[in-house]
């Protein structure tokens, strides 16, 4: 594997499978009474979060602790950004204390690439702007594989705010690499220009998109999108694109419903769907820890650095 995990594009197909297979072993650790192995003992991992995050930060932290790494969380408040220290300066200061891994979440696309160029530490992208969120896509693939035993040939439909979603980009790269038939669906105002060049089918009809789907993956709609005139109202969005039981019934009977969270119930997804029997949303969260353990182990766990 490369030094850093900046995006799914950094991984070969074999490396993706290696991570998924390693995650199987890691999940077993989480089922033990003593959920800790010494794999990363003596390694320091810094979780540098420039955006608020509960799920992803907690998931990384638990993963790091289960591997016995020394972890440190830095939530960079907006105020210290306003004080004028740049990302590069902050990173250089952290780097001076010789951590082994920096896990970065940042609002700017490409922030991890900047860090990667200046840091000896390994950099893991925990979400950069509208660009990528590779560990999310890996845990999604892990969850899909667990249920469907394969990814190749599955119809996976991703519905929601495609334009602003880093989850979308990482998932599209990963799922198309592994041979899934990926459909993306959302209002035209929220479809990235040229997204079909990534090898996906684009539809603005959710009824068409979900037909015979094996997997439906919902993306969050942010309320501030209404101000940008991307969509007229929450009500209209739910009417047109919201995942309702009726729409789910067009998919395959054994369809699974996924959501990276946090969910807006009644906006992109009806509660009956979110809590329904086909929902694997909480499994995704559980699998996130195992997948992040696998990534940390594969990047930082080797003897050779």
């Amino acid at each position, binding site marked *: 594997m490369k030094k850093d995990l900046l995006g799914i594009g950094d991984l070969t197909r074999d490396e993706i499978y290696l991570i998924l297979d390693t995650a199987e072993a890691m999940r077993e650790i989480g089922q033990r009474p003593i959920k800790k192995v010494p794999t990363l003992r003596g390694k320091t991992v810094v979780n540098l979060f420039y955006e608020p995050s509960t799920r992803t930060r907690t998931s990384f932290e638990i993963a790091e602790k289960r591997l016995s790494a020394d972890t440190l969380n830095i939530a960079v408040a907006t105020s210290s950004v306003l004080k004028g220290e740049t990302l590069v300066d902050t990173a250089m200061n952290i780097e001076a204390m010789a951590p082994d891994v920096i896990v970065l979440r940042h609002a700017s*696309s*490409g922030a991890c690439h900047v860090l990667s160029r200046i840091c000896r530490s390994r950099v893991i992208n925990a979400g950069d702007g509208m*660009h990528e969120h590779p560990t999310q896509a890996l845990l999604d693939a892990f969850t899909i594989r667990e249920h469907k035993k394969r990814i190749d040939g599955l119809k996976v439909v991703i519905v929601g705010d495609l334009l602003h979603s880093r989850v979308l980009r990482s998932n599209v790269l990963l799922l198309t690499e592994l041979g899934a038939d990926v459909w993306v669906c959302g209002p035209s105002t929220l479809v990235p*220009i*040229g997204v079909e060049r990534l090898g996906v089918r684009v539809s603005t009809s959710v009824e068409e998109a979900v037909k015979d789907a094996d997997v439906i993956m919902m993306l969050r709609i942010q309320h501030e999108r209404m101000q940008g005139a991307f969509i007229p109202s929450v009500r209209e969005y739910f009417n047109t694109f919201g995942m309702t039981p009726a729409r789910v019934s067009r998919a395959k009977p054994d369809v699974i419903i996924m959501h990276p969270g946090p969910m807006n119930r009644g906006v992109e997804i009806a509660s009956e769907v979110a809590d329904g029997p086909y929902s694997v949303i909480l499994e995704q969260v559980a699998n996130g820890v195992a997948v992040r353990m696998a990534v940390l182990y594969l990047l930082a766990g080797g003897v050779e650095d």
Partner: protein
Amino acid sequence: MAKRLLKGGRVVDPANGRDGVFDVLMDGDRIARVGHDLTVDAGVTVVEIPSGLVVCPGLIDMHVHLREPGQEHKETVATGTAAAVAGGFTAVACMPNTSPVNDNAGVTEYILKKAAEANLARVYPIGAVSRGQAGEQLAEIGELHQAGCVAITDDGRPVATAMLMRRALEYAGMFSMPVIEHCEDQTLKGDGVAHEGFHASALGLRGIPGQAESIMALRDIALAELTAGVVHIAHMSARQTLDAVRWGKSRGARVTCEVTPHHFVLTDEMLRAPIAYDTNVKMNPPLREPADRDAMLAGLADGSVDVIATDHAPHHYDEKRVEFDHAGVISLSRLVELLSVNPARILRVPGGSLSEGASADISILAPDLHVTVSAAAMRSRSKNTPFDGWKLRGGVAATIVGGRTVYVNDEIGLSL
């Protein structure tokens, strides 16, 4: 200053229909004669120009940011003009988005004083359209004109409203000054940072469509038709804008346009490779897609583009030479039109020809020189360029302003 004879170079002087081996006699700060095998008296210094070098009217870069006053850490009049003459430019026109803005005679005079002190390239200040470039009230354009401004612009942003643009065109028209427009519909641009297309989408960067530029160009061309004004479209990047200019010209509208080397050489593919998120390829307007780049090259060749200007980095003559002269897109004569004849005509400033009696502003080019761009070696105070490390063909042998040699390339070593 004594008489000097440039002997035996290939003279490219499209304004006078010359392209061939001629001698150029300079008398002090003027061009005295141009002809074949001129005989001269004793006492005239004869400079033999090796074959392969080109003698042409001094290049004029009509779109630079000298950053002085106010942002001297980026550039000064002295460093900017040093870079200019090293790039073969005998004159530059500098944008008014300094701090304070060049919206009054005091700032214009300050820039001209700094230019006189530097005493390298000629500097033509461009004034602001609106006070503080705030887009509300017209700047005192008459006073700017008197102080030495050759055009007006709110560059860095577009002229805010159609009404203000109309008034600016009408008012500047009285002084025969063009209004140079930074075309960008701010609402359509939004918070975009890169060309709207596949590469920006893949990188998760917010896009700016070409239409953000062409819509404004169409507005301005319509307003040029409505008024007696002249509009010059700056740093054109989108093929739709070039179409708008062609349409305007076909209707006889008073519109001219310029394109920068980065927009006719580079594309948005550089956002991803060789280095993803390389901020050296982040610029405004953004690098666009290959169809846009190709349209710019076609416009350079077919005459619809009037001017090549650098938009800031004044050391890029060498880049401009690449990709088209040797590749056969345009002739050397057309290049001199783009870089000298047309800027002089549009700004109504001296230069653009080697006519007898004209000021001796002369660039001596070395079309076959191999040049490697080095950000570190640039004379500008700013060392950022997307062309760092590029190996190019074509350089500058020497630059003469008003009969004075202001730059000699040591690699060629003309004894000027």
